[in-house]
Each structure stands twice: as C-alpha cells, then as structure tokens.
C-alpha cells in the first residue's frame, strides 16, 4: 500500500510509561526488601548490623542466624512467591481473555491446597520410617503435585484434537474446584486438633516456614516459569483478538496455550507449596498495572513480577510486626488489603471500560 501521511503524530505512548515503570518498581522493590530485612520480632536493625560490620566488628551468632538464616531467605522467598502469583494471574487473564481469571478460579490453587491438606492429615498415618525420610517436605511436595495434576486434568478435559477450549476449561475448573472443596472438607473432618491448626495456618497462607532449603527447591521453578512467561507477551496480546485472529497474525496459538498453562502450573504450584493460599495478588496486581500503563502484555508481565514481589514483601513485613512477637498469616493481610482495592477497581471501571 502507499503511504499518505508524512508526519508521525503518535497519541500518548503507553509503552514509554510502562518502561519507565520498570525502573520505578525495581527501585521500590529494593527499598521494600531492605526495609523488610530491617524489620522483625527480635528488634535487630540493619543500620546497627552495618555499623558493626563497617567498624570491623563481628556479628554475633544470633545476629547472623536472624539475618542470614531467617530474614534473608524469607525476603527472597516473598519476592519469588509474590512475583510468581502476579505473573500467573497475568498469564491466566491473557489466556482466558478475561481480567478476572486467576489460578484460584480454574482450580489450580485448590488442587495445590487439596494436596497440602491431604498431606497434613494423611501424612500422620504414614509409617514412621517414611515420615522420617520425607519429613517437612511432604506438604510442599503434595501441594506441588496437586497443582500439576489439576492443570493436567483440566488440559485433558478441555483439549480435543490439539485445540484447547477456554470455555470448557473454565467450567471444568469450577467443577474441579467444587470437588476439591468437598474432598478438603472430608480431610478436615478427619483431622485432629493439632492438624486443624496447621490446616488453618497453611490455608491462610504464610511465609513463616521460609528457609534456604525451600528457596532452593521452589525458587528456581518460579524464576524459570516467569522467564518463560516473559516471552509470551506478543502472543497474549494477539490472543486478545481471539484465537483465530491470533493465529492469522502469525501466533502459534496451540503452543502459546501449552506454554501459558505450563508456566501457570509451575509458578502457582511452587508458590502455593511454600506459602499456602495467598489470594488477590494475581488479580489486583495486573489490574492496577493495566490502569497505570495499559494492557500490553510485554511490559505488563515484567511489571507484574516486580509489583507482585513488592506487595508480597510489604504484606509479609506487616504480618510479622502487627501482632509481634507472634505473626499473622500473610493471606489475611493480602485479603484485607487486596479485596477493597479489587472492589474499588470494579466500582471505578464499572460501565466505563472492561479492564
């Protein structure tokens, strides 16, 4: 075709805004992470530690343990979990072409939850020798397996001759979610008092058990899943036009859907395994970012990871100090902060635009 225009008068370019947001969010994440390292039940402060180190002094054994074995892995794990949950939400929403989709909605999180609850309740019935071998890994591993199996089942149900029907997948997710809720109910019925307290705590989500061991098992899975997710930007944008049109503009739609499903399963499974049921991050983060810099999935995925990490580290820090010396489950904080924001978004956008 022949061009007619000579000047290039572009409208407000949201790409620049989104790129600038990368820097702001990265800076904010650094600040938040340092502040979180500085905060805790023992009253150990970062300036004091740095002062000691700068003065050529040695950290005491307690100080070293608190900083390196408790707070540091916890901050890293919080960043990974927050980023993984937010990116999972963004990918899921792009895949389902629906801003309210979330791993929580298609049953991936409840699959992970059932795995964990089953492990807590039935694990006690395992022979002592087996318990000794699996030990504390049982709950995370079971949660992880639960999310994988859920995703695979969904995929098998919703895919025919290589084509995934998103509508079938959503409905199957609702059915599986109901089934998992019922089975979890059975487990809770079977549980004794101590198990019930474990269940409640796990179900509300917490980073209290953070350790280098957990970070080393779950961290790389989350990071890898997110790196793969970052490559799906153009494909998810195209999917906004519908599957057929996405294919017509050159996107390998079936492969895109496979990748999206796998990354969501891996990121969500690993996150739920180490932190339990932390809600709202996956829905609130992409919503806020779309308001700020538009729905382009390229920058949106990266900003989601950053903002998800920021929000989760903040929520975890609050969870640690609000009722010190004990702590709140972090899921309570994210729900208390997230639900009003979510409602506010719905009210603000109602009738104007579907974000």
């Amino acid at each position, binding site marked *: *075709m022949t061009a007619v225009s000579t000047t290039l*008068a572009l409208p407000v370019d949201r790409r620049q805004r989104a790129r600038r947001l990368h820097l702001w969010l990265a800076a904010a994440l650094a600040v938040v992470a340092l502040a979180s390292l500085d905060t805790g039940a023992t009253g150990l402060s970062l300036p004091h530690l740095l002062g000691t180190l700068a003065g050529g002094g040695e950290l005491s054994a307690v100080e070293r343990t608190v900083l390196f074995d408790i707070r540091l892995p916890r901050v890293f794990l919080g960043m990974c979990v927050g980023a993984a949950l937010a990116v999972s939400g963004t990918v899921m929403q792009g895949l389902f072409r629906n801003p309210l989709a979330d791993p929580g909605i298609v049953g991936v999180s409840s699959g992970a939850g059932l795995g964990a609850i089953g492990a807590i309740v039935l694990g006690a019935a395992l022979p002592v020798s087996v318990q000794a071998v699996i030990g504390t890994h049982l709950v995370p591993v079971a949660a992880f397996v639960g999310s994988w199996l859920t995703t695979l089942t969904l995929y098998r149900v919703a895919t025919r001759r290589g084509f995934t029907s998103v509508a079938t997948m959503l409905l199957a997710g609702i059915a599986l979610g109901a089934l998992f809720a019922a089975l979890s109910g059975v487990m809770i019925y079977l549980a004794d008092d101590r198990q019930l307290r474990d269940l409640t705590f796990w179900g509300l989500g917490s980073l209290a058990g953070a350790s280098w061991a957990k970070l080393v098992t779950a961290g790389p899975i989350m990071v890898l899943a997110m790196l793969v997710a970052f490559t799906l930007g153009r494909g998810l944008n195209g999917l906004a036009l519908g599957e057929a049109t996405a*294919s*017509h*503009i*050159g996107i390998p739609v079936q492969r895109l859907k496979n990748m999206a499903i796998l990354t969501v399963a891996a990121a969500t499974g690993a996150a739920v395994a180490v932190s339990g049921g932390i809600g709202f991050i996956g829905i609130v983060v992409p919503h806020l970012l779309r308001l700020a810099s538009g*729905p382009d999935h390229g920058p949106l995925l990266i900003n989601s990871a950053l903002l998800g990490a920021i929000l989760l580290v903040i929520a975890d820090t609050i969870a640690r100090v609000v009722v010190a010396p004990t702590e709140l489950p972090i899921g309570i904080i994210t729900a208390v902060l997230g639900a009003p924001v979510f409602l506010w978004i719905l009210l603000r956008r109602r009738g104007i635009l*579907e974000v």
Partner: protein
Amino acid sequence: MLSARNIRVDIGGTAILHGVDFTARPGQVTAIAGPNGSGKTTLLKAVTGEVPSTGDIMLNGYDTRTLPPWQLAAMRGVLPQSTVLAFPFTVIEVVRMGLLRGTSGNHDRRAMDALGLVGLADYAGRYYQELSGGEQQRVQFARVLAQVWHPVENGEPRWILLDEPVASLDIGHQLEVMRLLRDYAEAGGGVVAVMHDLNLTAMFADSMTLISGGRVLAHGTAEAVMTDVNLSRAYNCPLRVNHVPDNVSTFLHPAGATG
C-alpha cells in the same frame, strides 16, 4: 494463486460443504456470494485453516496445512466478520498487533499509515472498545492492511481474505474499503471477499464464486456469473440484472418491483 480442491467440511456429523472447488488469482478481486447459511463463511474459514476440512488448499504453491502460522501470516491477512477485543487496547495498539515480528521499517509509521488509509488516523489514541461497530471494523481492516502492506513481496503475491468487509459500513466507507481492495489487487495482490451486496460486487469484483447449499452454483468472471438465472436460483427469488445507461456498471434489482 489460491486454489482449493474438493473441500469438504463436516460439523458435528452434518456436511456443510460438499466438495467445493475455489480458485482466486492475484491481481483480482474475487467475490464469494450466496444466501445466508450457504457456507460462505465456512469456505473462507476452511481456506484459512480455522475449521478442519478435507481436500487440497494451495496458496502460492504451498500446501497451507503444512505451513506454520508465522509463514502463513507473512503471506495473507484475514479480516473476520467481527472481532471482540478482550482488553482496553487503543486503536493504534490494535493495528500494531498486525505487524509481524520480522517486519522491516518503522512499525508506528506503518500502523499510522494504515489508519490513514481507512480515514481513522485521528482515532489512533482512542480506546478500541469505545468505537462504533463500523469504526471497529475499519480499525481491523487497517490491522490487516498493516500486516500485508506490500501486495507483492519477493516476487510473490500477498493475499487479503475478508468476511463481509463492508457489511457494517455506510455507503461512503463501503466504497472507500472496496477501492482500497481494488488498489491492492491492481498492485498485484490477491483479494478474496465474502460479499452480500451484489451491486458492490458487480462494481468491484473481477471473479466470483456463487455458492448455495454448500455447493458451487457458478464460478467465473463476475459478469458471467451474475445472470438473472444464476442469481434468481441462488437466492431463490426473481432478480434482474440491468446495466445503467452509461453501460459501465451493472445494477441489480428485484424483478417484481420495477418489472
């Protein structure tokens, strides 16, 4: 050259297309016409690979079923009958989506040029979802134009396949879109359009395939296909083809009305 041989489509055990042959040549506008439910959309979707079919489909000598989507997308753009967009993208963001990864040159400029062609350059920063139905359809047309901008690339023609591209447009924009398609064909590209408006078809189409009940009723030059007999049979009502006094364009009206 776009050629489809013996295309059959079954949906849920019902045969929708019963062995349709279809050809379109670069440099021409080829229209697919026929009554509601005759299988026009299904034929177009079979050709683009959107619905599974049996039979051979060749585009520029390639078996389209063996090509990956990105190679197909480099050869042809497709405009569906309507498009529902999932997120609040702006107009220019939608048009840019049509630009493939390897596209050379300035993508923003290409997108703005495409919007200029459909008369919507001033709408670039508006939310797509806030536009009227006809405006949205023109934005989608701009997206397709941006994708297959050069009608000939490396000596091979490119194609635009459209399902009722002007159905939701006013007469001025109908003519504008049809002229753009004519220009594209005259520059060496191939155009295949499902058409309901037979007068526009008469004005702009070189070739025509008339289908009815999932079968080809007639195929050939638009003039040869558009006869009283063919059209009346296809649409199951008496129609008469006239030529306006200047003898340039064909004009169609119900046979009963002016007799």
